[in-house]
């Protein structure tokens, strides 16, 4: 009975251990696989012609000839869509039409002044033009079809009158296309159409970028359409469906519902209806998608605000910060550990120091960040790489000390005795015997702190990290860093929403970087411990 119970106890213990290990592995997979999977979408995706345009414009990458041909093809495919949109907008977007009418009147006046006409005819032509202007304005303002058509007829009556040339001819074109529009559309719905049309226009702009005849927007983020196939899909959805909040049950909160734009309540039966089908069916023609491995993500600079481009400066900054932090923390930590174990003895002061170090290891990182601001930044005079890496170094110092202490303590006493018995001093013994034997353990501590230093955000928040800026030239410049970039995108207003792959890409890069650093350190440790074991 007793024996059987002991057996169950052993088995139970083993089972719990297995379960814990499996759970850990599972959690690791649950965290890592989606993160890297989504992060990979920053590197591996279907690019569109807009992406190629962006790459050429920002990074000067790609074949200009071929790009130009592609852009021409795409613009050809997009033209009917723009035309459809424009002609529909004429009936709806009265504001812009009225301002256009005024604009034409102004230009016509200028033309008249430049022409050598007599004062009489000048006054007469100007009066006519003003009259047409007022008629058109009234026509655009009115929602009564009868009245509008009467007004337009009046305008068109002037079409044959001599002298109304040049800019004035546009009046008649406007009047003709407007009279075509009012036949297809109920002017009473103008208000409703106007709001929806602006949604559609916005979606089209998101898809295709600025129109070729428009001036280039100043911000790079507005200069290009959907650069990736997933963005195309998302914007297309916004183009094809309207989001509406509907109350299905008074007891429940309102629900979001997607309404197709071809629905009669939307653009069903209007001139615009075919547009949606056109866009949806010719997406390939409109975007020329192609699979792309954007490995330059890891070296490219990003445009201000992380919209396009990669994380090159962030990777460099993170490496720089981590290496500097370790260059500060590792020697200091090892020497401190050596003192505590080998030379400090077991006095009360040493015990106090050890307690302090353990406490320091538990201090939140933001406290270190504030300390860095209050001490290093004040000392150096400005936030910079040096201040940030010293703060990071301080953060990981307790970890390094504790691990090194354990490693040095773990070196068999006989090793030290062998050296001491040969007449070596304590320092010599430590340097030539104890330290090499403890090195694998010390490296384990350094690996752990390396990952921590690379991933910390709070300590560099105030001490030297920036969102935007060049690659640092010296230790006294500020730098960008992966962890801080992730924080920046997450708290930023727009990028995280519109370009989620950038966020995941940054995080994946951080994971991969830490993994690479760890693998390198593990390889070094493996080699050393192999050597120590005498292979």
């Amino acid at each position, binding site marked *: 009975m007793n024996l059987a119970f002991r057996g169950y106890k052993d088995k139970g213990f083993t089972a719990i251990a297995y379960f814990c290990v499996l759970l850990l592995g599972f959690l690791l997979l649950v965290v890592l696989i989606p993160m890297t999977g989504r992060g990979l979408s920053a590197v591996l995706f279907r690019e569109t012609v807009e992406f190629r345009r962006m790459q050429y414009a920002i990074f000067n990458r790609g074949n200009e000839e071929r790009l130009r041909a592609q852009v021409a093809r795409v613009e050809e495919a997009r033209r009917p869509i723009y035309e459809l949109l424009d002609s529909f907008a004429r009936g709806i977007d009265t504001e812009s039409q009225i301002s256009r009418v005024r604009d034409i009147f102004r230009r016509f006046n200028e033309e008249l002044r430049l022409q050598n006409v007599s004062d009489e005819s000048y006054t007469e032509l100007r009066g006519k033009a003003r009259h047409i202007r007022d008629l058109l304005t009234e026509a655009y303002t009115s929602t009564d079809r009868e009245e509008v058509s009467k007004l337009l007829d009046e305008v068109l009556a002037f079409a044959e009158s001599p002298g109304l040339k040049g800019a004035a001819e546009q009046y008649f074109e406007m009047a003709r296309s407007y009279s075509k529009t009012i036949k297809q559309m109920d002017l009473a719905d103008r208000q409703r159409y106007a709001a929806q049309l602006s949604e559609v226009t916005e979606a089209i702009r998101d898809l295709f970028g600025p129109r070729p005849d428009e001036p280039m927007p100043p911000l790079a983020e507005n200069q290009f359409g959907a650069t990736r196939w997933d963005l195309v899909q998302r914007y297309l959805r916004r183009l094809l469906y309207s989001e509406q909040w509907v109350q299905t049950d008074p007891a429940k909160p309102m629900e979001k519902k997607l309404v197709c734009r071809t629905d009669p309540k939307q653009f069903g039966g209007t001139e615009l209806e075919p547009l949606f089908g056109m866009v949806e069916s010719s997406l390939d023609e409109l975007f020329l998608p192609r699979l792309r491995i954007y490995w330059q993500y890891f070296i490219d600079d990003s445009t201000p605000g992380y919209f396009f481009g990669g994380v090159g400066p962030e990777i460099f900054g993170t490496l720089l910060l981590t290496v500097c932090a370790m260059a500060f923390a590792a020697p200091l930590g090892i020497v401190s550990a050596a003192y505590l174990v080998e030379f400090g003895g077991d006095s009360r002061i040493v015990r106090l120091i050890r307690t302090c170090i353990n406490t320091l290891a538990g201090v939140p990182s933001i406290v270190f960040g504030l300390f860095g601001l209050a001490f290093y930044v004040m000392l150096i005079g400005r936030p910079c790489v040096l201040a940030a890496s010293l703060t990071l170094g301080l953060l990981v110092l307790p970890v390094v000390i504790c691990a090194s202490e354990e490693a040095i303590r773990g070196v068999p006493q006989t090793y*030290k005795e062998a050296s001491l018995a040969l007449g070596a001093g304590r320092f010599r013994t430590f340097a030539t015997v104890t330290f090499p034997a403890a090195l694998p353990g010390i490296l384990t501590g350094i690996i752990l702190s390396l990952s921590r230093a690379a991933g910390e955000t709070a300590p560099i928040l105030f001490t030297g990290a920036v969102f935007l800026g060049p690659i640092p030239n010296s230790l006294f410049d500020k730098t960008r860093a992966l962890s801080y970039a992730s924080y920046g995108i997450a708290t930023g207003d727009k990028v995280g929403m519109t370009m989620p792959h950038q966020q995941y890409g940054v995080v994946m890069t951080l994971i991969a970087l830490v993994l690479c650093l760890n693998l390198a350190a593990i390889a070094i440790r493996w080699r050393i411990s192999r050597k120590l074991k005498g292979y």
Partner: protein
Amino acid sequence: MNSSQHIPKSRQDDSGQPHLKVQVYRSDESPDRRQSQGTGGNAASAVIHSEDFSFYYGDKAGVRGISMDIRPQAVTAIIGPSGCGKSTFLRCINRMNDLIPHTRAEGLLAVNGVNVYDRNVNLVNLRQQVGMVFQKPNPFAKSIYENVAYGPRLQGGRRRPDLNDWVEQCLRDAALWEEVKDDLHKSALALSGGQQQRLCIARTLATRPRVVLMDEPCSALDPVATAKIEDLIGELKQTYTIVIVTHNMQQAARVSEMTAFFCLGELIEYGRTSNIFTNPASKQTEDYITGRFG
């Protein structure tokens, strides 16, 4: 203690040859005798001279009132049950016990006439004169060559060709040369246990010590390797003074000229090995040797 009654009270005279006789000192010897022996003829012939030497771990005595002279160019074995202080005494001779905190020594323990617990003693010199081989083979995780060259390098100033010859000489002295001459730069940890122990001996010899202390050098080795080490000890005693601590009484009988029996931190009996093993003066010694000791 009862045992003191069994100790023969044959006292040496200053001019005599103390190391040839059975030497037993009682712990309660008078201080005036001690003074007269300080630098006398006795100390001149004995490499290690201890008089009323005690060593304490905190309040607990590791060894108490040890007085003995150890002959040069001979093997002296120290035997005794576990915890009797034999290793403690051995490690006092080159002050390896310094590593342990809260210890102190009393009395006289001199090597070549110099008190090793004198405050001004040069530990480096002392340890180079008094080498030590440990219970478990403990070569450094370096090459065979580097292991042997470690001591000479500490002394410094040896040029490389010189050092090569010296390393070879030490390895030959330790009867290891033939086995390792082809791969001197292989890691010492790749050697077998017996080879490692001989390497440790070679490493100790490389600092040209006068005394070699061996702390149960064969306890971690198999009989074949043990036999090799014992042969080696037999050869080394031509040149070096060897003090060996061992649990193995056959080994003590085989390799040593003199044997000291320790019990509970005190020296019970010290004399020629043949005498100790055939005709022990003390009942305790006899019990221990014959295996009746608890």
